[in-house]
């Protein structure tokens, strides 16, 4: 279900967030709110600052300035592991499995040390449930190093889900997937949202973002150039110019129709 407009306080609030690397301004004062239960897409050209934004939210990077509020409490600048234990987790664009562990062991790390901090049978049942959701049950005993790229992408999601997050930030989980895998990934994202987890997703696959998102934020050169419903965003002239190419972009017409 889409978020009810107004009224509700946002679960995640980003206020004038900036991140500077040496001379490069990767994020220049970005602000937006995410409502609980939303699927919130983040798009933009390469180098727009999307992954930097996720890194600042979960604490693997310290923001140069600005605030990040999760349930009205500041999380900006907290270390990554502390943010995860509060309930905000991310996946990595370039998958980072523990290659010497099995799929189940990989996922159990999230269950053991995430927000839930499960032990014993509780951890095991959390792992089993997450493997089921992500369609990895049949690979539970396989070493992570032997998985296909599609399975590795799902393992990233599975481990993050095992931490029992309230907000999950998915960084290009559809990269490198074939069309049927992309459809499955879109269904998985909806399943995650329906289970009560708020989803932020960076995605280059424009059909997919437009298809599943309730709202979309568009970044370009570290700045917000648009935010709104998928329909509003793809029709925005700035977005068309910056990201989607010229106005006769067939992709765009396809998306809007």
């Amino acid at each position, binding site marked *: 279900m889409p978020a009810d407009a107004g009224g509700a306080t946002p679960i995640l609030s980003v206020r004038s967030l900036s991140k500077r690397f040496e001379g490069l301004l990767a994020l220049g004062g970005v602000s937006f709110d995410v409502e609980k239960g939303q699927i919130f897409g983040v798009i933009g050209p390469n180098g727009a600052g999307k992954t930097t934004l996720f890194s600042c939210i979960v604490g*693997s990077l310290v923001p140069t300035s600005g605030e990040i509020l999760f349930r009205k409490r500041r999380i900006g600048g907290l270390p990554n*592991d502390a943010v995860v234990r509060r309930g905000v*987790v991310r996946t990595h664009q370039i998958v*980072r*499995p*523990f290659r010497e562990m099995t799929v189940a062991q990989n996922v159990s790390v999230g269950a053991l*040390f995430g927000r839930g901090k499960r032990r014993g049978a509780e951890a095991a049942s959390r792992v089993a449930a997450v493997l089921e959701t992500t369609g990895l049950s049949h690979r539970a005993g396989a070493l992570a190093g032997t998985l296909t790229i599609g399975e590795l992408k799902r393992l990233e999601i599975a481990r*993050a889900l*095992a*931490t029992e997050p309230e907000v999950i930030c998915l960084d290009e989980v559809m990269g490198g997937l074939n069309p049927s895998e992309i459809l499955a990934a879109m269904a998985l994202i909806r399943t995650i949202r329906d289970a009560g987890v708020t989803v932020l997703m960076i995605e280059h696959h424009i059909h997919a973002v437009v298809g599943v998102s309730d709202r979309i934020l568009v970044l370009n050169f570290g700045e917000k150039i648009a935010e709104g419903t998928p329909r509003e965003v793809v029709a925005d002239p700035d977005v068309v110019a910056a990201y989607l190419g010229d106005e006769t972009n067939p992709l765009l017409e396809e998306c809007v129709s």
Partner: protein
Amino acid sequence: MTPAPVSRRTLPWLLFAAAGLVLLLAPRFLDRGSLNDVWNVAFGVILACSWNILGGFAGQVSIGYSAFIGIGAYTTVLLALKGVDPYLTLPLSALLAAVFAVLIGLPAFRLRGPYFTIVTIGVSEAVRVFASGVSFTGGSSGLRMPAGSFDFSVNYASMVALALAVIALTAALSRSPFGAALGAIRQDIDAAEALGIDSTRFKLGAHAISAALVAVAGSLYAINFQYVAPGSVFDFRLSLSIVLMPIIGGVGTLAGPVLGAVIFSYLQIKLLTIPALRDSYLFIYGGLLILVMLFEPKGIVGLWNRLAASVRRSPGGSDAR
């Protein structure tokens, strides 16, 4: 294969318990010289297995563990000189080493990979220089335990029991959530933190536990030799040996450090008795280290697993991996 009366999981434990029992009863049938050899091997096993908790499981290679042997040894001798029973000092040795490990780890664990390793060398050298320079440690000439009755059989039993306990502890750790966290940190520290693991806390925990165990071994070492000096317990070559044992046997594995310690300690005992080879042992260890690094980074255990896998594959050809 014939049906096994015990499962594959309990068999190693039965063998372990039997071996432990034999070693603890060894004073009834072995001569003093052989018992000394077993004592040396047990000392090596404690050092190697303890180091393996941080260096193997968590992948944080420290070349400064002689500092903890020294802390344990000096704690025991200094307190014994004040009239405390040497064996009653063991808990304090463990505690002091653990505290020192945390204090060193707080800044050092901010560094990753070789930078951390370099800092550990620096710290242990600093400790050695400090111990040689101040008066309460007896300076570079060291300290002698107060004259009194020394019972080798008690020391032997303590060292062997501690070695057995350390093996059992590392086995238990490797299957625990704590062990899972250390494994995750070794394989990808950023991914570990991204799943909620406070990497610094776990590294400090591993450092403290392994330091405490090594310090108790250092205390027992001092009780046995009745003497402690910076040149022996804080020797950089000792720190190197502690790293070499698990690497030769199989770093990060359970059996590797035990195997490495047995081979290394035994070689050391034998080499030191051959005058021609007395000074060449570092050369031999260096050669072993290069061979392991080049051909089998998981040491003897890795070699064994590879051979076992190829034997399994060759006749039937049905094995998947």
